[in-house]
């Protein structure tokens, strides 16, 4: 039983890797960005767990900034992904402009909230 699951895991990981290798580079960069943002958010949460959440707005804006950028990057990735049929007629330039605008709003709010 354990053997079969572990082999399953191995094949799964292998197929995942091979499937992912096919994605275009620009999407991979976005993925990296998302992972980085999430990692930063996790670090902040861990830090909050150790040190405490005293300036709560700072903590909140820090974490939400990371989560927000991650979410927006995911949205951008969805939109520029060529395999996504839903956004065929959306040019990537437009998607990027939207992304920048949304980020701008997000970080203006965060700067305001930082305290």
């Amino acid at each position, binding site marked *: 039983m354990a053997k079969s*699951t572990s082999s*399953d*895991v191995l*094949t*799964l990981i292998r*197929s*995942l890797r091979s*499937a*992912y290798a*096919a*994605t275009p580079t620009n999407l991979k960069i976005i993925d990296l960005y998302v992972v980085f943002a999430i990692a930063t958010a996790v670090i902040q949460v861990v830090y909050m767990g150790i040190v405490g959440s005293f300036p*709560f*707005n700072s903590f*909140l*804006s820090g974490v*939400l900034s990371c*989560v*927000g950028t991650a*979410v*927006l990057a*995911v*949205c*951008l990735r*969805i*939109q520029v992904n060529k*395999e*996504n049929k*839903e*956004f065929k007629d*959306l040019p990537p330039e437009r*998607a990027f*402009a*939207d*992304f920048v*605008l*949304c980020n701008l*709003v*997000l970080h203006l*709010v*965060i700067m*305001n*909230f930082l305290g």
Partner: protein
Amino acid sequence: MVAPVEPKPGGTLRNAFGGVLGFFILLLIGVLAFSIRLFSVIKYESVIHEFDPYFNYRVTQFLTKNGIYEFWNWFDDRTWYPLGRVIGGTVYPGLTLTAGTMILNSLNIPLSVETVCVFTAPVFSAFAAWATYFLTKEVKGIGSGLTAATLLALVPSYISRSVAGSYDNEAVAIFALIFTFFLYIKTLNTGSLFYATLNALSYFYMVCSWGGYTFIINLIPMHALLCIVTGRYSSRLYIAYAPLVVLGTLLAALVPVVGFNAVMTSEHFASFLVFIIIHVVAFVYFIKGILSPKMFKVAITLVLTVGIAVCIAVIAILVALVASSPTKGWSGRSLSLLDPTYASKYIPIIASVSEHQPPTWPSYFMDINILAFLVPAGIIACFLPLSDASSFVVLYLVTSVYFSGVMVRLMLVLAPAACILSGIALSEAFDVLTRSVKLQVVKLLEGPLSNAGETKDENSTAHNDVLKADKQVATNNKTEDVKERPSKKNRKKDKENTEKAPVKYHKEKRLLVLPLEASAIAIILLVVLGSLYVIHCVWAAAEAYSAPSIVLTSRSHDGLHVFDDFREAYAWLRHNTEVDDKVASWWDYGYQTTAMANRTVIVDNNTWNNTHIATVGTAMSSPEKAAWEIFNSLDVKYVLVVFGGLVGYPSDDINKFLWMVRIGGGVFPHIKEPDYLRDGQYRIDAQATPTMLNCLMYKLSYYRFVETDGKGFDRVRRTEIGKKHFKLSHFEEVFTTHHWMVRIYKLKPPKNRMKGKAKKAKHTSKPLSGARRDGSTKRNPWQ
């Protein structure tokens, strides 16, 4: 509008013409929405209505005078004496900021703050009608949009909250609510981040304006969840939802009154939970996309075993978090929404407000009229075909019906949903009926030969359109435009309906065609129904909802009577008392007293401190001496009571008195409600209990009342009062308005020990008053 021989130019021309026509119809709808709300100004005058608007008015005045930074830091010491209130941090600033900046914008057009305040609500109801148009257009096309906007411009439930002068949060909040929903649907339909950003900003405006924003932040997650559960997840849903939660939470936290509540209270937890769920689902779809089906199955089984364990842990943590916060993280008002009996059980102060009561059935008919019958048809129309947008509208309706059943006040949230669905229903009905009429007429007029050539052309274009429609799930495409517009036009002008017949020929063949007579009669009936609605709305706007409630009128056989007692009393207070005198009254009149009389009050309509209100309630229900001591300890100089017994004004303090007893008794147990009731009945006649007849409220209301007609007949309670002749030992009457509706008493200074001296002191301390006083106290045989 020429008959389309060549389909393409004809189509564009028609589109252009339709666009212009639609624009003008929209403009007219805006004018209609604005002008139907002006009855109150025409019939009465340009005044601010009721209670809360006076507070908003005062805040706006402060804002325009002192600027925004002073406003955020405003500590108001003229209310809740001696506690005061931090206005900047406890008020939803959307409305006042809107009105305040309107003044700044119109620097060259001098408008007084009051004018702007009076007309804010009508202007925003026009905006709300337009927002409804856009929302419904996203769901079902232009025709439905225009119908829904017309219905919303007229709906009595919304008129009741947005007549000119009703300067309350709801006035702008309903617009913000509808507009947020529109942007959500728009984002859902287009999947554009730009609209998602706008959606978050609009949500921010809603958070600024009204506590009802929690409705949005719960409804949208519900809809997202519904989409996920029914297998309609799409990346557009992700784009519509995920940025909204992050941005919306941050923006909500910027508003001082919400602050950290945006992440701390359970009202917002649903959105975070769905936020997590949608990420899991998005990730699953992503994996599914890149893996082969077989490998995906393997992954599912693996992830499920791990995932369930993680989920249970997360849920356990969440439950622990929720349970650890006081009142389980829910505020009283929200709890009374979920459990309708909650308020009456635990929080009399919420239950005491009449607009927090459950509505009666007639009020549904009064407030949304025929929409109540059209809504089910609209729901059916939304299910054919069911899109993300139409499922959202249905969900919105269902939840708001529930909420309106809990609180009368939330009927206001139901109204837009009812309008949208009724608009869809009406529009679809007209669509089907006029189409069958047109088809029959065409059949009758033209032979099948002459029609054949045209229909072929039309067949192909219509077919293309249909194909396109199938591709895009969004309903706002060309076909729909063409399809919907005639129905609207027919509603407006019944004559122009025969031109469009050939366009729909192809579709009509597939659809059921009703007989000519039946559809004609049905159209007529629908028009009659619509005009009945219009008549009802105009009547409601003119008669039922326009009264400002600070100026009252009554019509009798000898003409119109105007009761302007409230302003008389407040003006008296303003001119005849010291600036720093404290005035005690029941909390209903707190806002008006601070705004109109500019005197410090003990409690007001922002019922943030229950104990303080209970203190006033206790004083009102105590005997004179105890009441005097309570009031004196609060530094009160004047006591104001509202009394309707002479003219028959039903919402006076005697009728509210039981709530004072209840609220007072809730904090100070020596006040017991049964003491004031004779056999469970609340009465003030000779059968009343001695506690009732000796309490301060009774005495202040009925002092010298017997002098008016000799019998002391109370026209509200329709009975003679129980105790007619008495005199006051600790209070003295200083002012009574023309119709006795407001009576103001002054606390007598504490007596000296020696009786003779005390009498002298009393005589000298008596101020000159504007009231009609005479030596009546001598006649009293009592006491």
